[in-house]
């Protein structure tokens, strides 16, 4: 890394850019020496420009954001390069100088709205604290007035009442509004937003980002937007920077980069992004199947369009007994309120649908819509309040424990959190073999063989059988969880947000694996997700849920092409990148 490094996004315009990052190098000290997180990152941001950094986890995108304001976590330190903000180098600035810049000239919106507000102080206290620290107002009344202004501009109704409330009384979206309000309170020249909406529902995300956009435009603030979602980045920023393994691999105007990805990594990302892929099926402008991937090893699995087209052919009108039949299902939770009082909360409200054998039905909804509760009811992990759950012609509620035990053989789950779904102290082989042991299938030797077979089915090497989960990545853990679910050769697999926590490329790989396994083993999937974009490539039928009710149920094509309900349309519009025209 020398000074000859080119500057991506270099502008030909006269005058110094607002922010210029030159050959930035950041390392983290660990027991095994310094680990380099950034290897010579250079880019510029002009006044009033919005730039997005896109990359998978571990690509260094958040480290870049933290390094700009010199707030690297833990053992991180800037090893070289410059961060020139209006000509001043922040990498070597003193603490006092940095405090002058932070907040006042560079605002920061952190990733997790849940943990970035102090739960023991009221919202008002925290807003007023920021206002005082940045010298925006002085005197009690003036500070209070400014705080109300900040919350109002952040889009919170009855701000003066809200000031006295505490973070736990705010929803995730409202907290993020407060944080955005704080970040913009001093009208900074640059606002850095690190995954500001990744913890929020899509419709909330859309409203918040619209709001953020209008605010930055009126103030003329430059925006540096960090995200893992290529569609979101392209929709919200004029320029894109694609990062991979601590380096910038490609940078340029958003639309051009999407239409003409030159680096193989960017090409892969675009092919794997479900939001963009699902959009492209309709326009089918570019035969992305032609894309050559530099690597073997499952590379053909990245092309989600092909996958979706294959699914369209595959949809078989399977007759006979439906795999899953749910009729008038209701689940009411009692929420304890202390003093022996409790209120009722209807999580699932009169839900009915059927899943034909060998097909995939997606249950889509935002958080709190009751979709995961249905999965738990179906798996017999919760008891329903009323209604009928029928699996392969048998009513679950009427089963005794032996029948329920037998049912478990034909229906297995895969859960969302790849870091929580495997026992950290059980090795991979024993984890996969556990269902076999529980159901007393085969002897020790044949179980061993079956474990190897399953590992091969999910494309993992046999040696993993003796390893432990903490040595695996999220995607690999999810493969192990799938192998465990398949161990008993079930007919039905309940996938509860099974790909939601994964990076796009890994997500595409797992979706491909699921599609292959379905074709091979004629599995029935109940696919629970909040992400409509993924639904397009995996599901045959879709049930859209809102507040415990199914608001729309139809085939995938119908839902995407002719959504009947306003809520479905809102969800579809909120898919990041959905509004991008991919050109001719």
């Amino acid at each position, binding site marked *: 890394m020398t000074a000859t490094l*080119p500057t991506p996004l270099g502008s030909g315009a006269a005058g110094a850019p607002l922010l210029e990052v030159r050959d930035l190098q950041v390392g983290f000290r660990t027991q095994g020496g310094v680990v380099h997180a950034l290897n010579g990152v250079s880019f510029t941001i002009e006044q009033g420009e919005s730039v997005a950094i896109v990359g998978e986890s571990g690509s260094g995108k958040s480290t870049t954001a933290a390094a700009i304001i010199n707030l690297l976590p833990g053992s991180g330190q800037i090893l070289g390069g410059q961060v020139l903000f209006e000509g001043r180098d922040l990498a070597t600035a003193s603490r006092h100088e940095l405090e002058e810049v932070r907040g006042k000239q560079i605002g920061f919106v952190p990733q997790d709205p849940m943990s970035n507000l102090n739960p023991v102080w009221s919202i008002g206290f925290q807003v007023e604290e920021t206002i005082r620290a940045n010298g925006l107002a002085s005197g009690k009344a003036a500070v209070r007035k400014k705080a109300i202004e900040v919350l109002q501009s952040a889009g919170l109704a009855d701000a003066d009442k809200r000031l006295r409330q505490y973070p736990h009384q705010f929803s995730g979206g409202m907290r993020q509004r407060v944080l955005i309000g704080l970040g913009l309170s001093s009208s900074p020249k640059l606002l850095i937003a690190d995954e500001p909406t990744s913890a929020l529902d899509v419709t909330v995300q859309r409203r918040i980002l619209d709001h953020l956009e209008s605010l930055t435009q009126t103030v003329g603030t430059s925006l540096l937007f960090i995200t893992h979602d290529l569609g979101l980045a392209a929709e919200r920023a004029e320029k894109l920077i694609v990062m991979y393994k601590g380096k910038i691999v490609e940078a340029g105007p958003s639309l051009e980069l999407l239409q003409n990805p030159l680096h193989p990594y960017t090409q892969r990302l675009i092919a794997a992004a479900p939001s963009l892929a699902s959009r492209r099926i309709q326009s089918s402008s570019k035969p992305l199947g032609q894309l050559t991937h530099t690597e073997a090893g499952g*590379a053909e699995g990245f092309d989600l369009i092909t996958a979706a087209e294959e699914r369209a052919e595959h949809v078989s009108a399977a007759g006979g007994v439906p795999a899953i039949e749910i009729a008038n299902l209701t689940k009411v939770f009692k929420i304890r309120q202390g003093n022996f009082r409790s209120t009722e909360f209807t999580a699932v409200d009169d839900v009915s649908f059927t899943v034909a054998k060998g097909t995939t039905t997606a249950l889509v909804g935002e958080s709190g819509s009751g979709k995961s509760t249905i999965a738990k009811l179906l798996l017999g992990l919760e008891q329903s309040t009323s209604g009928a759950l029928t699996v392969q012609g048998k009513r679950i509620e009427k089963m005794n424990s032996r029948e329920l035990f037998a049912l478990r053989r034909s229906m297995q*789950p895969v859960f969302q959190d790849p870091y929580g779904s495997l026992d950290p102290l059980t090795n991979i082989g024993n984890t996969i073999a*556990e269902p076999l042991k529980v159901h007393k299938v085969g002897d020790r030797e044949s179980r061993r063989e079956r474990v190897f077979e399953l590992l091969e089915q999910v494309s993992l090497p046999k*040696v993993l059988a003796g390893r432990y989960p903490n*040595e695996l990545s999220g995607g690999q853990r999810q493969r192990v969880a799938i192998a465990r679910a398949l161990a008993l050769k079930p007919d039905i697999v309940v996938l509860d947000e099974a790909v939601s926590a994964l990076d796009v490329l890994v997500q595409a790989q797992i979706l491909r694996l699921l599609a292959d396994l379905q074709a091979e083993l004629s599995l029935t999937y109940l696919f629970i997700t909040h992400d409509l974009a993924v639904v397009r490539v995996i599901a045959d039928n879709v049930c859209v849920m809102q507040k415990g009710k199914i608001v729309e149920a139809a085939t995938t094509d119908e839902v995407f092409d002719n959504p009947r309900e306003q809520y479905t349309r809102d969800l579809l519009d909120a898919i990041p990148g959905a509004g991008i025209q991919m050109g001719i």
Partner: protein
Amino acid sequence: MSDISAPTPRTRSASHYVADVDETPVAEVDAVKLDEKPSNLWRDAWRDLRRRPIFWISAAFILLIGFVAMFPGLFTSTPPNSGCLLANSNGGPTDGHPLGFTKQGCDVYSRIIHGTSTSLGVGFIVILLTSVTGIIFGSLSGFFGGFLDTVLMRLGDIFFSIPYILAAVVIMSVFSENRNILVIALAIGVFAWPTTARVLRSEVLRVKNSDFVMAAEATGLSKLAILFRHVLPNSIAPVIVVTTLSLGAAITAEATLSFLGVGLPTSEFMSWGNDISQAQRDLRTNPQTLIFPSIALTSTVLAFILLGEALRDALDPKARALR
């Protein structure tokens, strides 16, 4: 600042930058890396422990005193109780008696050596008692929750609210006739288990909501099997730490009871606490009779506490990451 270098293929416009593909090779997606050694919590903890001198020093010392407790005859041939000559009362070190004599004229060194088994014996029985009770109560109440949790934990609260030394004094006074190691261990342990139970309960509460427990339930594994196979192994680490630390506390408790005169009968058992109690009257004139048993007691307790601290650091990955 346009593209001044980097021979990039098919560059579309001046502002569209592409890194050299050879310099930024694209790796296989989600490739399995197996170059590191197999690791899990216990292996990582062992790797961490191995590097700690404190762990080796305390472990070696504990092994040594364990050996002394089992084979006191190898370390001294002087009988601790018999053959005491009042002529030697509070005498200084002489040939064959390196630490001098007690008020009764018994050999201090021999009494310390023979007292080791009493201290360690009481300590180990106490932690056996507290950990077995604590693990049963803590895991059941954490795992099954509800009414059982309420009953077990309130019971624990009752025991917890009574200072265990006070309770032990009362129990030992009741058993004034036939006191032995088992009785004193029971007296100490009966009121010390709620700590273990509480620590385990909170861990079980954390672990039982994991997805892997739900997955095991969905395979049809029974509740108890889930508790033993998945929940307990993942929540036992803090219990090990607490138990190691409380072993030192149990040894201290035995010495305290003996010092107070409600411990083991002096005639039958060598006990450091007894010797310290006897020696306190002559502290100003003959400090050696008090100092040496005290050193034995303190260093043994210290060894267990240091071992517990080392285990705690090794078994808590969060604490390790912060260092």
